[in-house]
């Protein structure tokens, strides 16, 4: 029996159910976590060789490659070469995993659905609620405006951080990219401050996850089922993706 046009219009859009955090997202999230820790711990050791700020230094115990005994056994130095080796191992994980995360987030519609739009009024309201300890955590699958702002912010910081890192690594081969940071030391400064921004994000991110452990659990088990039908990639992307 043929359906009429009215029937089609009256039917609600089809629900497409999936875990809040699909397996791919969980794998990339935790791979990212490991890679970022490698980058920070080895990065602060490399920084220590020629500190940008004389009043900022890091103890070897916090670093990768900084363990004196290991450094001497393998390299006969104080760990600089070990830290560099770790940093350039982490670099590949960050670049490969980060690019996959970025493409997945944009192409699957996940980021458009979960992180946008961000309305300034909602940000203010959420912050006010947070001050009065009135934040609602009933529905994990919907991010509040401050969460959205932080997640979008950290994605942008990560892009700047990787760009500055490439400018430091290849100031000659990628000289046009390096020129974006004014000078070699400009790129170093951005890379260093970007690290602080990432650490600051991690502190808030981990603290909130521990305060509401269900969110942490969701990043391990996948969390509740959500309708991924609502919110699709923008029209420009949709045809290629067949969504």
């Amino acid at each position: 029996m043929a359906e009429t046009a009215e029937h089609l219009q009256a039917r609600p859009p089809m629900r497409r159910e999936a875990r809040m955090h699909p397996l791919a997202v969980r794998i990339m999230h935790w791979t990212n976590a490991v890679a970022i820790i490698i980058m920070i711990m080895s990065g602060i050791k490399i920084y220590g060789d020629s500190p940008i700020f004389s009043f900022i230094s890091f103890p070897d115990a916090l670093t990768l490659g900084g363990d004196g005994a290991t450094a001497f056994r393998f390299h006969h130095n104080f760990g600089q070469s070990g830290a560099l080796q770790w940093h350039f191992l982490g670099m590949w994980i960050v670049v490969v995993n980060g690019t996959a995360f970025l493409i997945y987030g944009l192409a699957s519609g996940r980021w458009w659905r979960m992180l946008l739009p961000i309305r300034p009024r909602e940000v203010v309201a959420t912050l006010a609620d947070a001050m009065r300890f009135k934040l609602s955590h009933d529905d994990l699958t919907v991010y509040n405006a401050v969460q959205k702002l932080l997640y979008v912010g950290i994605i942008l910081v990560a892009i700047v951080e990787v760009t500055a890192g490439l400018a430091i690594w290849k100031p000659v081969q990628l000289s046009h990219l390096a020129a974006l940071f004014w000078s070699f030391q400009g790129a170093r400064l951005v890379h260093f401050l970007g690290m602080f921004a990432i650490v600051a994000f991690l502190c808030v991110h981990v603290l909130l996850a521990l305060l509401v452990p269900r969110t942490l659990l969701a990043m391990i088990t996948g969390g509740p089922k959500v309708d991924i039908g609502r919110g699709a990639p923008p029209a420009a992307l949709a045809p290629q993706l067949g969504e």
Partner: protein
Amino acid sequence: MSIRTLSPSRLRPARRIDRSFLAENKALIERIERRNVLRGALSLGALALLGGCDVTDTYAMQKVLTAVSAWNDRAQALLFDQTHLAPTFTEAEVLKPPRFEAYYGIADVSPVDVSNWKLELGGLIADKRSWTAAQIYAQPEQELIIRHVCVEGWDYIGQWSGVNLRRFLETVGADLSAKYVAFRCFDDYYGSIDMAAALHPQTILATRYAKEYIGDPFGYPLRLRTATKLGWKNPKWITAIEVTNNYPGGFWEDRGFNWFGGL
């Protein structure tokens, strides 16, 4: 900016070992008996067993890190474009004198006696006759005002002049299809670069800094300056150049630093 008497680099021990250490600790050294060393070795073995696979893990991890560093050599070689020139700068930006760096302090530099100095050539080079400083200084010179970047993170703009390395290698009939150009130095430092970097237009055997002869601490009479490599890849006080297909390594590379060291 004045010459730093002691670079704060942590790439070298903070204090050099004083020979008096041996005399002062003679008694202690004599107390180290074979028996104690053996006992210690046994304890270390037991500790390794107790600690699960900690020691083995460290070695396994180091293997991974070394393999990734070798992979990074290849990745950088692929990324390297021989026609891409490094940014150049104006004379006003040049740091005089340049910044000193070596695996020891500036006070320990032994100046080269140029009347006895000669540049030896070896390996895949047709004309292996050695060169005197006067012969090299008579060659046409090329000037580079380029950024020096140290792996530690500092940088400065330097103004270097000297013989273009590609031109020099062609003059002596070097095999330009070989893989490596290796350098030996008066201070026992040694290093090597890939042939592609050696043939880059901004790679020179430098003889002058800011139009004057290079000062003793900075490599007089001859040093390498290449715009496409980190600072330590530019050996000073060069005494021999070898063209080879056998991986020559280098002073810092043998201490875990990445060989390609490209900018």
